[in-house]
């Protein structure tokens, strides 16, 4: 089947099997490899994308169900070559190590701060509880998000 959706502001189509995951189609059909394939069972958040306003694990989204949706991936967060304030804060605080979880954190942060510009620490910890980071121990990420919450960005 052919699925058509809007990804990062651009209309895209792909010929797919309906049961394929959105993640697979993003990575293998559309050349958007920024969303990561770490666990493929919704337990790590590395493949997080925003679909019609919801932050979802794209590995668990069946692509057949995406017709007509609007999708934001990590590739759509920066403004050209200028990092989004979320990305800049993570970079400044040292929140990137291996970077495999990073796209998922960027997406979850974008989703969180759009809905709630000033979350408290516990709310932030819970909001990011579906994003596993194996390298940083989350400290630098939390400091970046604290800074963003403080800025009201």
């Amino acid at each position, binding site marked *: 089947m052919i699925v058509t959706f809007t990804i990062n502001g651009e209309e895209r189509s792909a010929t797919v099997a309906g049961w394929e995951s959105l993640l697979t189609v993003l*990575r*293998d059909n559309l*050349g*958007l*490899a*920024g*969303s*990561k*394939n*770490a*666990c*493929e*069972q919704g*337990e*790590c958040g*590395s493949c997080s994308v925003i679909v019609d306003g919801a932050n979802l694990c794209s590995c668990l989204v069946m692509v057949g169900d995406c017709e007509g949706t609007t999708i934001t*991936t*990590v*590739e759509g*967060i*920066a403004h050209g070559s200028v*990092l989004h304030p979320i*990305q800049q804060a*993570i*970079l*400044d*605080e*040292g929140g*990137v*190590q*291996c*970077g*495999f*979880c*990073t*796209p998922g954190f*960027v997406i979850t942060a974008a989703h969180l701060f759009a809905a709630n510009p000033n979350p408290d620490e*516990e709310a*932030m*910890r*819970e909001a*990011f*509880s*579906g*994003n*596993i*980071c*194996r*390298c*940083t*121990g*989350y*400290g*630098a*990420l*939390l400091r970046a998000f604290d800074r963003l919450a403080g800025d009201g960005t």
Partner: protein
Amino acid sequence: MTVGTKERVAAGIGENAPRPDGVAKLSGNFAYGSDLWIDGMLWGATLRSPYAHARLVELDITPAVVMSGVRAVLTQDDVPGRPTFGQVEPDQPVLCDGVARYWGEPVAIVAADDQETARAAVEAIIVEWEPLPPVTDPDQARAAGETYRDMVIRRGDADAAGSVVIEGEYETAIQDQAPLGPEAGLAIPDGSGGVDLHVTSQWIHIDHAQIIASLGMEPDDVRCHPVGIGGAFGAREDISLHIHVAMLALRTGRPVRIVYDRTESFAGHVKRHPARMRYRHEADDEGRLVKVTVDMVLDGGAYAHTSHAVLANASFFTVGPYKCDNVFVDAAVSRTNNPPAGAMRGFGAVQVCFAYESQMDRLAEVLGLHPLEVRRRNALGPGDPLATSGQIVEGSLPTLRVIDELESIPMPDAAIPDDPRRLPGGTGLTTPKDAVVRGVGFALGLKNLAFSEAFDDFSEVLLILTPAGLEIHTAAIEVGQGLVTICEQIARTVLGIEAVAWLSADTSQIGSAGSTSASRQTQMTGGAVYEAAVGLRDKILQQFGGDELTNDGVYDRGELVATLDAVTADGPIEQWVRYRHPPTEEPDEFGQGNPHAGFVVAAHRAVVDVDPELGLVRVVQIDTAQDVGKALNPQAIVGQLEGGIAQGVGFAIMEELIVEDGVILNPTFTDYLIPTLLDMPDVGSRLIEEPAHWGPFGAKGIGESPTISSTPAVVAAIRAATGRPLNRVPVRPQDIAGV
């Protein structure tokens, strides 16, 4: 040109310089192994053994071969060269040699036009097994003489005796590195019989040696390229799919890509060795160690990998950062049908740290001493002999200072929190505030720096100064730890030049940088960059008659005598270095000698809230004082400390691969649990700068320290809260609840 004000170069050592790969990683544009793509490539897939031990009775690949879209189906008969691999002892078949010796052992490999076809072809292969009884008990294997290595340490007087005797048996389970990026790679035939390999790795040169042996090819025919790694922690130090993907590419003449899924990844890389350790500490009335006697067995699983070196580490660090004149260790690493074990962050030092720190706590308790006091009284320092090998500690080892600094970190608010997310059980709402007991625990850990036991350990770096700036060429692997950043910082500081770029080299372009493991790259490749930069700087200063190099150019007594453009006017200036750490020795038959290049020490304090009735734990705060030598990039160090602590917390209370009859029962992220943000404590860090006797600016490698003593600190805190003995990690709810 006028004389400018010479300012210190920006983003040099001591600063929190940003990662050069940060923007690409944040934008989703950084290429990891699993992102590699080339038009016309085939997809590979692997048939694996469903048994931990079984004889291959029938293997018929015909149904796969005849499938449309299948380009190659290969088995052990197709391995062109040496049929086995292994970085120390080549004992593992590239593909099953008729007997599967562990669950998930690769049996056949397929290349097909797409992933669906490749997987379907694997399913189509007819395979019949005769299950054999698996050997799963490392003690039994040891008794039967099935060991990869046995170690004996005999130091001091066997008749020495202390007035206080502490005996204990300890066990550590299997921890997985669980890097988020899966094993992945792309092999591209070069058109003249050779192949280019882009496979996730911690050490491309050791891969290369094994790959060419099994491919039966000359070194020049195979090039291993560094590729983006989604974490490593030891999981990428051994061969996984490297030879397979190369075989498929060479057979088909087309590029082939293999990406493991999560379950394959759990099957496809080595684990932390599980250990059983029987300890006897004898001390005098003051708590000073008189004698330590240890018997331990590690389970090496089905193939050797790095078991030799892991056992050595476990043996040499069996007493920890403490003085003791009489030490007797019998240790072995067994061959079983359990998952192969190998490198994981801490590399043998983790297992024994849990045991010796548990012993030190019990000693303190018997003598009525504060846990840190008994450690102070025994603290190992510069000039002291290591308790096991007798090697005199050279350079810095601030054991007493890490204890003092740890104590200076403020404790958390004593009140039990109200928010359930801060309580044991978290959002599961299991635990009312009044069911919570708080505990505090401490632990210290000792680790060697870089490779030991006379290994020829070196790193090669080539620096090239061009009009555009400095290029660092190296095969050292960045796994996320920030080596790229600190090498650039070192070069900037030495050369005074800001424009520095890290350029990864493949195996044909430069010699080995050694493994990104053993806490070694900051000192080894960082050391190589330092030495090469000094050489380059001195060469330039001599040539242009200056006394200082800066971003502007060469100065002589404050006067600019040559701009950088002028310096490179005749072409790029190069400096190559092969950097070695001070030589180490093979220990003698009793484990005596100088096997190590240096040591690093750390201390952890854990504060935990426990629900003793349900056996649930919320780690409240972990503080650490870390011997860093010199902090080249404090932010990156704190990142390592916090990340290492997360893995230590995981090993203390949740991370365990559960194996039954050799089969991993939880090879997914649903059941292999990694700490989330709601499990991670607040962390306080103190960096202690006492320069190392080698390495750039006195820096020490600190990648492993945070995982070593954070685990026993958490367990000590749970013991303090509950009074339970807890002689095994991870600690399970039933262990605390006593059911």
